[in-house]
């Protein structure tokens, strides 16, 4: 038998009144008092360019949010990367934890991994870092072009060309030129995607996963799946080098006019 009752304030001790007319709870018997849990209404996360998500993934997201809620104070949590794509071809879950305070990310990561059994990759950012990243870094734009967020976030930032940041990212894609024969399909796709996102960004275009994949198809005349399956030959590499050089020229165009270099 269960009885729901309220705690009343007393002069020396507080008390809980229960009706005299009841079954069980005899005088002198010991009982446990515990708070009646309030029904927590599950907040629905916000979807950005995610048209469909498998129910089990949504459950996982809610579980992760609960773990993060328990372990730290934060402003927002954003899920991104291959986890929010259709299907289950993801290696880990990429999480952006937005907070103004320094958080023990490793502890949160371990807590989530213990709860879900899935590898987690957490990046902690402040709101300012996020906005700065979005305005200067095409990889941020691409990452957040498709994501699920606990709270609504609005970003409307202008592309800001910081050639040193872009050059830094472009250097990563240089690996294709040197190691074309060694790289596997996924690595080739990653480097191509990086290159094309920079190429578009340097042109002042907004970058998203969809626009980058469409541009890859247009430029190389080959589907993304074929690159991932490593079905690419020397003609692909020739085109890649051509685009790399064009992207480099576009990025370093503003170097000579940068007074901060002095």
């Amino acid at each position, binding site marked *: 038998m269960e009885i729901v009752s309220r705690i009343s304030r007393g002069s020396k001790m507080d008390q809980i009144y229960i009706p005299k007319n009841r079954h069980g709870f005899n005088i002198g018997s010991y009982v446990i008092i515990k708070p009646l849990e309030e029904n927590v209404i599950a907040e629905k996360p916000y979807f950005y360019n995610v048209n469909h998500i498998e129910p089990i993934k949504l459950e996982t997201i809610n579980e992760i949010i609960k773990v993060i809620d328990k372990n730290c104070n934060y402003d927002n949590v954003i899920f991104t990367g291959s986890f929010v794509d259709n299907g289950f071809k993801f290696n880990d879950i990429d999480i952006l934890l937005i907070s103004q305070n320094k958080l023990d990310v490793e502890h949160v990561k371990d807590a989530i991994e213990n709860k879900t059994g899935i590898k987690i990759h957490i990046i902690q950012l402040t709101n300012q870092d996020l906005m700065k990243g979005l305005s200067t870094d095409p990889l941020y734009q691409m990452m957040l072009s498709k994501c699920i967020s606990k709270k609504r976030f609005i970003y409307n930032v202008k592309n800001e060309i910081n050639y040193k*940041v872009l050059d830094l990212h472009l250097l990563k894609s240089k690996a294709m030129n*040197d190691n074309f024969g060694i790289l596997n399909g996924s690595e080739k796709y990653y480097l191509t995607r990086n290159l094309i996102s920079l190429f578009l960004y340097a042109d002042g275009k907004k970058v998203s996963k969809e626009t980058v994949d469409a541009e890859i198809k247009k430029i190389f005349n080959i589907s993304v799946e074929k690159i991932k399956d490593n079905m690419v030959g020397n003609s692909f590499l020739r085109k890649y080098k051509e685009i790399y050089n064009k992207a480099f020229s576009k990025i370093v165009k503003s170097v000579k006019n940068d007074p901060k*270099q002095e």
Partner: protein
Amino acid sequence: MTQNRNRLINLMVGNISNSIVHKILEMAINNEEISNRYNKELTTSLEIAKSYRERINPVNPPFPSKDIMYLKKRIRNKVRAELRMRISRGYKNINLDLIEEMIKNYLKDMKIIN
């Protein structure tokens, strides 16, 4: 060199060169935020290079002198080409004199030379 050893050496050379390029570019920057990003990238490349090094014989230094010459030459050429390309486009404060010393330090750090 066997084919697999060649492949691992190429991957290691690519990552060492990338790390040195980032290190020299980082030294030419006076913006802490960007400098940190270059630092992160150079550390990542170095860690990857180390992981390849662990799979290349001989495990203990030194490598055969023929290999050392080859490695130094390839790293030097790659780093110089990358940095010269940037200098010609207007990058300033890039010090090419640092390359030799850095190659030596990296190869020591990776137990390739004594």
